[in-house]
């Protein structure tokens, strides 16, 4: 594969995805959106607490990239990982229960919103130290390489991570050792409240990764089919032994950094402009235009999701909390202590 750095996304492939496939992409993006809208409601009602970082606006990235992964591949994610977790197939009930801190949560309630884990599905967590997950992805990929496994490790992180030393250590190490990592930089233009141009001397993040000698290119992160296409192309190359690849997924967070912030750092007009590129609207519009989606179908999809989400809330409310006597479990393994 040619080394593409800092250029526009490669042309879409000739194979046009089917209407059914597009419908599934839409359903997954809606699942994330409606799940998080429910989280806002539950947070406002004080049913769930802590930090809750919403992915609303960025759904096309998780959904698109996930299309390129197999169940054997691994994922390392950030604290804004509800979307990655849900599309990976971590059961909705266990993600919702984790928001409630219940034993039925995917991390038994110990992690909360920022630390969703499902090792059986090779989902190695939400990591809430910016850049902290990158070395883990390197290590998982190294283990795969040493054992001759043809797996890809997808590592998600934001634009903020690009300013961290760990990012540069990991770009270098991954390229130096030719490790099978798909780096997915979700550039939503803000590290919390600090705009990319106020934090990065070089704002072309794909170019930064490309300087380590790995193929890297920007992708329209609001267009799920563009994300899917780019991710498939990159993941296939990684799987074929092409070493690490880097996608700069240009996206936008519609909501506050965490649950609420006064958003003093950005214009309402800017948010509005991006809302016009809402990834869900974008796909739905295309599907309508192609005659693949009617009002009734969409209503049915929404209705089914709403019922699933309500059921997950009911299950989480009813689930047991961990007994206080178990406070110190999972500090050491039983066989160690």
């Amino acid at each position: 594969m040619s080394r593409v750095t800092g250029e526009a996304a490669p042309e879409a492939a000739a194979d046009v995805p089917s209407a059914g496939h597009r419908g599934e992409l839409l359903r997954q993006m809606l699942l994330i959106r409606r799940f998080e809208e429910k989280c806002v409601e539950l947070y406002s009602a004080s049913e769930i607490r802590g930090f809750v970082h919403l992915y609303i606006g960025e759904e096309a990235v998780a959904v698109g990239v996930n299309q390129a992964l197999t169940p054997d591949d691994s994922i390392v994610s950030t604290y804004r990982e509800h979307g990655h977790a849900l599309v990976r197939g971590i059961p909705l009930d266990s993600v919702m229960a984790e928001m409630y801190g219940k034993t039925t949560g995917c991390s038994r309630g110990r992690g909360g919103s920022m630390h969703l884990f499902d090792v059986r599905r090779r989902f190695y967590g939400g990591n809430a130290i910016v850049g902290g997950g990158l070395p883990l992805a390197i290590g998982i990929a190294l283990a795969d390489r040493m054992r001759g496994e043809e797996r890809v490790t997808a590592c998600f992180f934001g634009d903020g991570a690009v300013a961290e030393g760990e990012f540069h250590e990991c770009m270098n190490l991954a390229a130096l050792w030719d490790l099978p990592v798909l780096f997915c930089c979700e550039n939503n233009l803000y590290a919390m409240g600090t705009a990319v141009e106020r934090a990065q001397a070089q704002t072309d993040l794909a170019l930064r990764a490309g300087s380590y000698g790995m193929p890297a290119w920007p992708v329209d992160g609001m267009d799920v089919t563009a994300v899917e296409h780019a991710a498939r192309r990159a993941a296939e190359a990684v799987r074929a032994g092409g070493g690490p690849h880097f996608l700069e997924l240009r996206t936008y967070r519609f909501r506050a950094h965490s649950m609420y912030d006064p958003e003093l750092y950005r214009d309402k007009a800017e948010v509005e402009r991006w809302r016009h590129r809402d990834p869900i609207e974008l796909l739905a519009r295309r599907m309508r235009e192609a005659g693949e989606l009617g009002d009734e179908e969409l209503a049915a999809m929404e209705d089914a999701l709403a019922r699933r989400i309500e059921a997950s809330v009911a299950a989480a409310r009813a689930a047991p909390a961990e007994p206080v006597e178990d406070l110190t479990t999972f500090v050491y393994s039983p066989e160690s202590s």
Partner: protein
Amino acid sequence: MSTGEQVKISYREAMRAAIREAMQRDDRVFLMGEDVGRYGGCFAVSLGLLEEFGPERIRDTPLSESAFVGAGIGAAMAGMRPIVEIMTVNFSLLALDQILNNAATLLHMSGGQCNVPLVIRMATGAGRQVAAQHSHSLEGWYAHIPGIRVLAPATLEDARGMLWPALQDPDPVLLFEHGSLYNLQGVLAADAEPVDIRSAKIRRAGRDVSLITYGGTLPKALSAAEQLSADGIDAEVIDLRTLRPLDDATIMASVARTHRAVIIDEGWRSGSLSAEVSARITEQAFYDLDAPVARVCSAEVPMPYPRHLEEAALPQPERIVAAAREVVG
């Protein structure tokens, strides 16, 4: 069964033998760190292992402590058994985020799913005139962290025998090798067995005072005990070996016999491991004590370069003897 054959060996060679044996016994084990391969290790511990096991398993890394320690954590989560070498404890601070926020935390934060069977080895301590960025004893900081096991091999037997059980531990283990010990020479059984990594050991039995220490100050405490013995003071020397979790039972049983305790710790006194041991003795054995607990620690100064100042900054046998005499009264 032991064959009874004894071999002359150094601490460095004992550690190397332990790594070699682990690599032979388990193909999931690999060694990774700065200059562990071609250079042979900054303290020559891994000298020759690259030739024996090849560059995949004796893996030189760039100077990226956070990335390669984190990579060790990731590889451990994914089923390998990495040994990560960090040159010195001062440099380990560049990887502290990975050690604390990931290695020590993942098991809990994932509700018991993410084991991190990783061993991190590093040199610690002063005594070689390498000044304030290569000489500190920060293992006490690491012993503060729940979720990791902290070991300090101070003898040939422990240098040879701690690594294998550390690799069997499903949780992260940190091994602190005091720089002054690498040239320690002695004899060891040719077929030395793995040792227990859960308990402290009495290195010299005594009745009058308990000298409690670990790592690089163990030889100093033993030397002090010999001097005290000439004065008719019979000192017991306890080697903590496992700094976390601490073996309270061995410490308290000793204090119950001797009624006096001196803790020797190369870390700075304030907020140190010696402070923790002292507090535990106060909590658990207060009524056994005939004198206040005493401590011999490093002066609270970044380690100076000149030999005389470095010596003055560190716990020395004379200071241990003086402290023991004081508590014996």
